[in-house]
């Protein structure tokens, strides 16, 4: 199956919160209204500048959570969803600390806590469906489809309405690209988006340090052994000379 995506058109969202409710129903979460992402709310609507902005896991192309997890509990699937295996998770919460979008949440009051976040309705999509939130949207503010098609569609919408839309698809290049894409008529920094993110995928930052480990071990090991070899030899020579001197003095 091709890589999927969701394109959110902020100009169309009416803030009805049908997506929140559908998400809760799909994931069997308690039906209370929440204002921020939590272990029981995988998507929420934020209001900024009289616009409604839906937040959810961005499903990065190069997921930070996947790269930082020590036990590999996260994986980027073929269809684009970043999924989490709670059986592996040891609860170090590095994924939460590292996520550039501050998406993963934790079951803080549980004795067997799990990380929670949007699942991209992974199983529903595998069966040929769309995500529950897109399905529920009455305003067509979110559309689901193949990633490549939606990128083209977003560019088409912006180029056909250059006066209306900001010339930027949020998620096209941020941290290497995400499977959730946004277009808007209000600059993204005014809508609570993290606009200072670079285009470089974050996992590259830690990899640049991690990839040096083999050389550090090999060069360091050789160096330490070499230093020991020299200092030890020096010590042996000193001792040998001392003994030689003692013997000479005895002979004399």
């Amino acid at each position, binding site marked *: 199956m091709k890589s999927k995506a969701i394109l959110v058109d902020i100009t169309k969202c009416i803030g009805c919160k049908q997506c929140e409710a559908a998400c809760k129903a799909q994931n069997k979460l308690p039906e209370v209204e929440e204002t*921020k*992402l*939590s*272990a029981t709310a995988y998507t929420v609507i934020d209001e900024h500048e009289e616009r409604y902005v839906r937040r959810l896991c961005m499903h990065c192309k190069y997921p*930070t959570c996947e*790269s*930082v*997890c*020590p*036990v*590999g509990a996260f994986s980027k699937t073929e269809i684009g969803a970043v999924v989490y295996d709670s059986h*592996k*998770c*040891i*609860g*170090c*919460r*590095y994924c*939460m*600390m*590292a996520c*550039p979008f*501050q998406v*993963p*949440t*934790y*079951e*803080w*009051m*549980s*004795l*067997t*806590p799990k990380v929670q976040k949007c699942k991209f309705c992974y199983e529903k999509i595998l069966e040929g469906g769309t995500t529950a939130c897109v399905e529920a949207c009455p305003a067509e503010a979110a559309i689901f489809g193949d990633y490549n098609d939606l990128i083209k569609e977003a560019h088409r919408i912006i180029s056909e309405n250059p006066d209306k839309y900001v010339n930027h698809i949020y998620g096209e290049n941020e941290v290497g690209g995400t499977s959730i894409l946004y277009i808007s008529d209000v600059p993204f920094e005014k809508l609570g988006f*993290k606009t*200072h*993110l*670079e285009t470089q995928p*974050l*996992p590259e*930052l*830690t*990899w*640049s*340090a*991690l990839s040096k*480990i083999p050389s*550090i*071990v090999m060069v*360091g*090991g050789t160096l*330490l*052994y070499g*230093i*020991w070899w020299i*200092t*030890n030899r*020096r*010590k042996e020579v000193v001792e040998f000379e001392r003994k030689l001197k003692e013997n000479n003095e005895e002979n004399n």
Partner: protein
Amino acid sequence: MDKSFLSRLTFWKSVAIILITLGLYSVFIRFTGGLGAATNLSDEFPWGLWLGFNILCGVGLSAGGFTLCGIVYIFNLKDFKPLVRPAILTAFLGYLLVITALMIELGRPDKIWHTLIMWNPRSVMFEVAWCVMLYTTVLALEFSPIVLERLGWKTPLKIIKSITIPLVIAGVLLSTLHQSSLGSLYLIVPNKLYGLWYSELLPVFFFISALTVGCGMVIIESYLSSRTFKRELEFPLLLRLGQVMVILIMVNVVVKFIDLMDRNSFDLLFLNRTETYLYWLEVFLGLIVPFIMMNFKKIRFNRAGLFYSALFVILGFILNRMNVSVTGMESGSGASYLPSWMEVFITMAIVSLGFVAFTLIGKYFPVFSEVHTPPNKNSQISKYIV
């Protein structure tokens, strides 16, 4: 209660007992109500005091072990041998306490063994986990002669001694990786960690500061244990270690300068922000004050002077780690965090546990008694220093 017991109950013992009791109570709450019941951690701020102090500082303050092992066995500076065992003991206890703290801080400590079989070599945390496991094993082996001597087991002692050099090399390598990788953990958050601390050189800074504080810890721990156990202080050795500490401080300052220059970030040093003051406080406490102190002969050649210089290094180090892990992360995460009293009690209990264990082991095992530097040799060393 027994009267003789009460009379033996000194001030510090009672403090330790109170702190450990409060800590145990907090541990009980953590394991019956979850992390949320005991801590002020949140989705926006998932790592707090426990990670910053118990893990980052705990590992850093244990750096004396590999520093001293390297000095004595790799560089063959055998004069320093009397300091090795206390340093290894400090490091070993430090790592055991870090593991204890980790079992409280992890959400699912029962699954910690997953790191053994579920690998993700792209994760810094994976490297950290393996370094903790392997280096604790190395430390246990390096510590074992102390126990074996006490028990009088000759054969295992011989075997351990015959592999000393490979063991020390492994220990130095693992520590180098481990100390630096704690800094690498933060390479992934360029948008959250404040610019004064975020740098590509984080692993380098963590390594240099760990070496510095390693020397400082050996000085402090020798000074305190000489008082506790009423034994002579290896002053000339500690002085030389203090000089190494000063050199490392200078290296740290130079690398910090180059780093700020490379990143064009000098303006950050003068912004009117909380982070600026905390950064300057950290630099002042940990680098400037001890550097100035150690440049005065009067202070340097004075036991208390040396002790306080090392203490400042440690304070600056702790502030640095707390800045990287907590205060430097707050504005970028858009969250404020103050530890709950239960988080504080558990941290204090863990520190107390360290002091208690060190005192008990120092009392009952041959940690200090192995080598006694003859006084004439001491004077030779001090001549060499001057």
